[in-house]
């Protein structure tokens, strides 16, 4: 369909492969003329989402893969990242901005994804995140 880039990719639990996915999506985002601020947000969210999938979801297991589906239109970018891990309950992730968590070195990825994307949803199992960023 003209005006829409829609792709599905399956990558190994490998951070270099994740980088290639990130660049592929960002190339499309650039091609559709998204602002620098939007591109910054999308890059950050993809990075956090793929890191979570590879590190926490698949535990760097080389036998497990990560599925990435994305659709870029002039209006919005939709990205879905699915790992083969057991999933988790995002509601149980501690708020990293609470005073008692401020100096903990981890636990900010999901918060940044929420802050920088317009929508972020997890499937009931918690092994798939779907993110939307509108072109503003």
């Amino acid at each position: 369909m003209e005006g829409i880039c829609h792709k599905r990719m399956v990558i190994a639990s490998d951070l270099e492969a994740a980088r290639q996915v990130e660049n592929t999506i960002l190339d499309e985002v650039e091609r559709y003329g998204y602002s620098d601020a939007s591109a910054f947000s999308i890059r950050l969210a993809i990075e956090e989402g793929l890191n979570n999938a590879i590190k926490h979801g698949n535990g760097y297991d080389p036998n497990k893969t990560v599925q990435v589906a994305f659709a870029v239109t002039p209006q919005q970018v939709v990205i879905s990242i699915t790992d083969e891990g057991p999933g988790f309950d995002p509601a149980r992730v501690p708020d990293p901005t609470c005073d008692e968590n401020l100096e903990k070195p981890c636990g900010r990825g999901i918060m940044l994804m929420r802050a920088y994307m317009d929508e972020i949803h997890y499937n009931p199992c918690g092994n798939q995140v779907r993110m939307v960023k509108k072109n503003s």
Partner: protein
Amino acid sequence: MSQPTPHLKVANDGQVTVVELTPKKILDEMSIMQIGQQLYALAAGSASPRMALDFTNVAHMSSSALGVLITLHKRVREKGGRMVLCNIQPAIYEIFAITRLNEIFSIQANRQEAILALQ
């Protein structure tokens, strides 16, 4: 005398160690781990480290990089030292603000002010 390392440019200004982060993107885990090891080694090599971290080049940063900065900050303080961040681009500063880490870290506008704050 400037001393290059893969991800850092390190110089001394009096008692202050000025560390310029050279990558534009501090995103991938491997690089972040290497940057962390280099920064921790700098902190460990001083009795009471005074470190100015210059973010001039940094245009992208992930939550893992924030984790390294938090750990470094803790180690520096444990040795009675201090750490100041400077030259942070507005988009990167927003990450610090969203995560409230701007309340934890001392942040100065530029390198001169960072060095001054550490003297």
